């Protein structure tokens, strides 16, 4: 017999936690207040401005005409380019999500279970973080000498006699964009999954093993179910950032691949604030819906 995580005693205890109430107490409000204030001042007010502007009119030489018009939105929805761009961005999202999930889960699993010393875990995380302390502006420039026609990879491949001609699709292609995303965002998957995994009571795994469960069964019936919140949180990170990215797609796609945020960026660089605002609001709506659906499947706050 193989146990599933829901049968386990400790989760029942957690679910029966007495202190949590929908209204909470004064402490809870005080504790949540600073964060709420920051978001209020630095996010909600600015975004309210954005929403207001999305209903403004604009002309080539009169960039903001206070008004209440809806054509900025109808333009977004009536354009075939919008759907094509969303399809492109969603495709990236899906592929990158799948790759970072598998890779991130595997590495989080390694760090949580195979490395048992805390200092060593911290060192591993530091090693994974150091590359990000060299500014992304610099790292993005360095992809050309790495993946380009005369880059390290092509020189290596040609030197080893694997190809005669440089491989062109390594850079400025959908492949390059996906590679860039995986490179940047796998860590965003690793961290929450790792944090979920170290909460798993090691005795559960021992117990399952004692009952004759194979490693695969333990993974499937204990580790994965109990890592679900971490997986969901990592997924939120990856989906949210890829949906809103334009830097990676521009640099590694050679400017030839569209993304929703890039459309917004182009409009902004032309000081077309109202359509950019409308596009941003739509992007926010679409992404929130996706994440809302995801959080309906996995409630990340259930066992807090």
């Amino acid at each position, binding site marked *: 017999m193989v146990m599933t995580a829901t049968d386990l005693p*400790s989760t029942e205890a*957690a679910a029966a936690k007495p*202190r949590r109430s929908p*209204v*909470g107490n004064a*402490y*809870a409000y005080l*504790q*949540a207040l*600073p*964060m709420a204030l*920051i*978001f209020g001042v630095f*996010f*909600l*007010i600015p975004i309210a*401005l*954005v929403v207001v502007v999305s209903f403004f009119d604009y002309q080539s030489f009169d960039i903001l005409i206070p008004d209440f018009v809806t054509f900025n939105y109808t333009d977004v929805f009536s354009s075939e380019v919008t759907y094509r761009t969303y399809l492109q961005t969603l495709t990236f999202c899906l592929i990158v999500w799948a790759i970072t999930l598998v890779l991130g889960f595997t590495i989080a*699993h*390694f760090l949580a*279970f*195979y490395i048992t010393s805390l*200092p060593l875990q911290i060192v*591993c995380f*530091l090693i*994974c*973080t*150091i590359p*990000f*302390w060299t*500014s992304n*502006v*610099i790292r993005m420039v*360095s*992809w*050309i*000498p790495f993946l380009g026609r*005369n880059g*390290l990879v092509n020189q290596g491949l040609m030197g080893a006699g694997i190809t005669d001609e440089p491989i062109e699709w390594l850079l400025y292609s959908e492949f390059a964009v996906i590679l860039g995303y995986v*490179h940047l965002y796998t860590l965003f998957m690793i961290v*929450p999954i790792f*944090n979920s995994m*170290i*909460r798993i009571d090691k005795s559960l795994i021992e117990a399952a093993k004692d009952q004759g469960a194979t*490693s695969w069964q333990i993974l499937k019936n204990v580790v994965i179910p109990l890592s679900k919140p*971490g997986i969901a*949180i990592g997924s*939120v990170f990856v989906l*949210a950032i890829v949906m*809103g990215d*334009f830097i990676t797609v521009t640099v590694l796609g050679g400017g030839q691949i569209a993304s929703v*945020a890039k459309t*917004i*960026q182009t409009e902004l660089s032309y000081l077309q*604030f109202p359509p950019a605002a409308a596009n*941003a609001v739509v992007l*926010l709506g679409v992404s929130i819906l996706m994440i809302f659906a995801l959080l309906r499947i996995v409630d*990340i*706050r259930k066992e*807090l």
Partner: protein
Amino acid sequence: MAKLPYRGLMIAIFIAFVLFLYTPIFTIIILSFQGPDGGLTFPMRGVSLHWFAELFGPQSIGDVWGAFYRSLSLGGLVMVFTVVLSLMAGLAYRRGFLGSTALLYVAIASLIMPSVVVSLGIGAGFELAGVQRHWSTSGLGAHLTWTLPFGLLIIFAVFNRFDPAFEEAARDQGATGWQTIRYVVLPIIAPSLIGIALFGFTLSYDELARSSQAIGAVNTLPIELQAMQTNATTPIIYALGTLTTGLSFLVIGITVGAAMLIRRQQQRQGSDAGKGV
């Protein structure tokens, strides 16, 4: 615990992943030793330390070191705020409060909203309110709208299935709320908080788009580096990358070395200090 399966394979995957993470860094390191006539791409034109010397000399465009110190300071501030505010919010979520779902979705919205748009909103908002922008005010706020969602969600993972029995036991023994957090909760989640701190600092230190309109007159490092791209840019940016990476390894190496040394000494003296309260 019994031996874990595929140990070798797992180690190999991890090492491969680390190598993958460092691919741009390898290129950066190699090219930072370009000769004085070399550029930002291959071919190498000689090998020299020229660009490291240039990095420490006067630059014509941009103020790399000023921006570097600002980024470090801002990153430090953001790190502290992110850890403290996320932890507090996490505790609030454990208690539950009205509006908790709204706050969660606001945080997620902040993550999704393209940073250029948020930045423009903050910059314009400050202008409308007649407040000057500065990296330590509007800049800090802009960075927090980026790091706090990460902090909050990671704290969810940290507190996930965190057994309330620990806290209850402490309370039964007469501990106050603060004592419970300080002596029971914090020591257990300390490693995770280090992770959040690391995340907060790194996200802030490398933040570009969200700062661009909210930072005020003087730039953080990424904005300065990006602005430098509007003129002829030399391998000094690579030298900076190499130096950052080298110094980071040095600092971590020294820290790890010191920690190991201290532990060995403690073991020799049979001291039980450092084992927690």
